[in-house]
């Protein structure tokens, strides 16, 4: 009964939060079919991928704050490669701080090409965004697939477009480029990725409100569905904000234990281990699973995008509904081990 109530309530709440959303969108929200609940993280055997793993779907991984070259990066990289053996993702999104410290040839080797060698050898493409610790000249490093640009977009497959932004230098020129790109976009999934999180429960950094002020209006106006970020050295999933799903994956090599502080907008968080994400898009559903370097699942679920709405100048919110299988807030940081 409670589930039914929630199922009715959530779409209504989302619809209320989008007062200017089209009637069509609201109807679609109400008419959506629920996504099957994912098993609770604790019940997933270590290393097991619980995504649908459907042939022909769009599969990718997300890592962030990786470039240390230390044992933690190597452990995550190893688990990532092991995960691919059962979930054949085709590319990896890097949300910044790709090369910490120096950036000599040796650094690129120790902090990128060696840890991810099995994936690179397997033809997996990496798409990087610049973090605050990155040298912008990394954009010329071909394996990062940045086309020599600080910000760029790419379409790895029909049905999805990614936008890599440089959140350290969010100037007018970049914002205009971003808006122009969004104006030209079609009805595909729109996923932005960059370094600094507009929403974060991190005690060290927290939400980058300046960036949020700059980007959120564009996200909403042009229908960005998902935002992937790092910077905070933990994993966090934010409750959808204005219809947009936000994820932080900044612990793929660095970790700030116990750094998540209580925040109303946190849906799930994990700050006691090193993590990465695997993601699958099937039609209007995006399934995600966050795993540790030991293969433990710490979060999973899906978001459902309702309708394939073309961007229009008058649309101020987009139809996206969270359907998290286990979207319970995790226990306090100290109790999560």
């Amino acid at each position, binding site marked *: 009964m409670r589930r039914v109530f929630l199922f009715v309530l959530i779409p209504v709440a989302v619809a209320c939060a989008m007062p200017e959303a089209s009637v069509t969108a609201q109807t679609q929200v109400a008419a959506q079919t629920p996504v099957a609940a994912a098993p609770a993280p604790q019940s997933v055997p270590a290393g097991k991928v619980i995504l649908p793993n459907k042939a022909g779907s769009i599969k990718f991984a997300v890592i962030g704050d990786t470039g240390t070259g230390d044992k933690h990066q190597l452990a995550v990289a190893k688990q990532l490669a092991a995960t691919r053996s059962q979930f054949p993702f085709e590319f990896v999104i890097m949300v910044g701080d790709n090369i910490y410290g120096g950036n000599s040839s040796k650094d690129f080797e120790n902090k990128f090409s060696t840890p991810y060698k099995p994936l690179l050898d397997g033809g997996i493409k990496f798409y990087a965004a610049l*973090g605050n610790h990155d040298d912008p000249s990394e954009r010329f490093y071909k394996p990062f697939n940045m086309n020599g640009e600080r910000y760029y977009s790419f379409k790895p497959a029909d049905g999805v477009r990614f936008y890599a932004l440089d959140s350290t230098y969010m100037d007018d020129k970049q914002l205009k480029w971003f808006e122009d790109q969004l104006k030209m976009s079609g009805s595909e999934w729109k996923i932005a990725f960059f370094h600094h999180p507009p929403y974060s429960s991190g005690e060290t950094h927290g939400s980058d409100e300046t960036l949020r002020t700059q980007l959120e209006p564009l996200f909403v106006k042009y229908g960005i569905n998902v935002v992937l970020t790092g910077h905070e050295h933990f994993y966090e999933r934010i409750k959808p904000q204005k219809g947009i799903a936000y994820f932080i994956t900044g612990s793929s090599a660095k970790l700030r234990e116990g750094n998540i502080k209580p925040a109303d907008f946190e849906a799930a968080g994990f700050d006691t281990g090193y993590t990465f994400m695997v993601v699958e898009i099937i039609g209007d559903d995006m399934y995600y699973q966050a795993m540790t370097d030991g293969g433990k699942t710490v979060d999973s679920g899906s978001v459902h995008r309702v309708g394939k709405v073309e961007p229009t100048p008058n649309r101020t919110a987009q139809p996206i509904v969270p359907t998290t299988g286990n979207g319970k807030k995790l226990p306090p940081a100290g109790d999560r081990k």
Partner: protein
Amino acid sequence: MKVIRSIGALALLCATGAAPALAQQAAPKPPKPQISETTKQKAAEENANPDALVLADFQKRVDAYLAIHKEAAKDAPALKETNDPAQIKHAQESLGAKIRAARANAKQGDIMTPEIRNKFRRLMYPVVQGPSAQGTSGSAKAVKADVKDELKENSEERKEEGGKPVVLKVNATYPPDTPLPSTPPQVLMNLPKLPEQLEYRIVGKNLIIRDIDANIIVDFVPNAIQ
């Protein structure tokens, strides 16, 4: 015994009571404006804001540097995508050498003149040390804490990674094995925008302007954070 207790209590009271006052004393005062007589005179003649003239002068000097950069880039190997990071370094070094030759007599203060340095310290003060933040949407306290954390993180990374010390010298190469410290976005928001070939980085307490494509220090503000 009572006397000792009273003295102890008094000392504790003084210590706790004085702590906020001491902390307040420890906080650096905002830098006072230092506008040159020439700028003051020009501002008076043109009925202009002296600070605006200082920033316009900065822009003019940056533009002049950029002209040198662009001229040097014509003869340098183009920065292009490569699988070999050494080629990126090589292109940077070649461009750096040409820029160095073109401005062989460049010295500290050519771009960051004393009044521009002072203006930069004043622009940075509110978000780094001042009692209130400007140009950000976060609360003053949160912004300052975030900036402080980021600067601390830079310092920790520097210790962890090692690398050569950064020589604060115009035209010097930024050591490639040394971490590039980040510059908090809140600080960047308060500083004049740079062309895409250049960037600000905070090295210790100093602010440098770095040529990204040539990996050289263009000029710097010593003790930008006091």
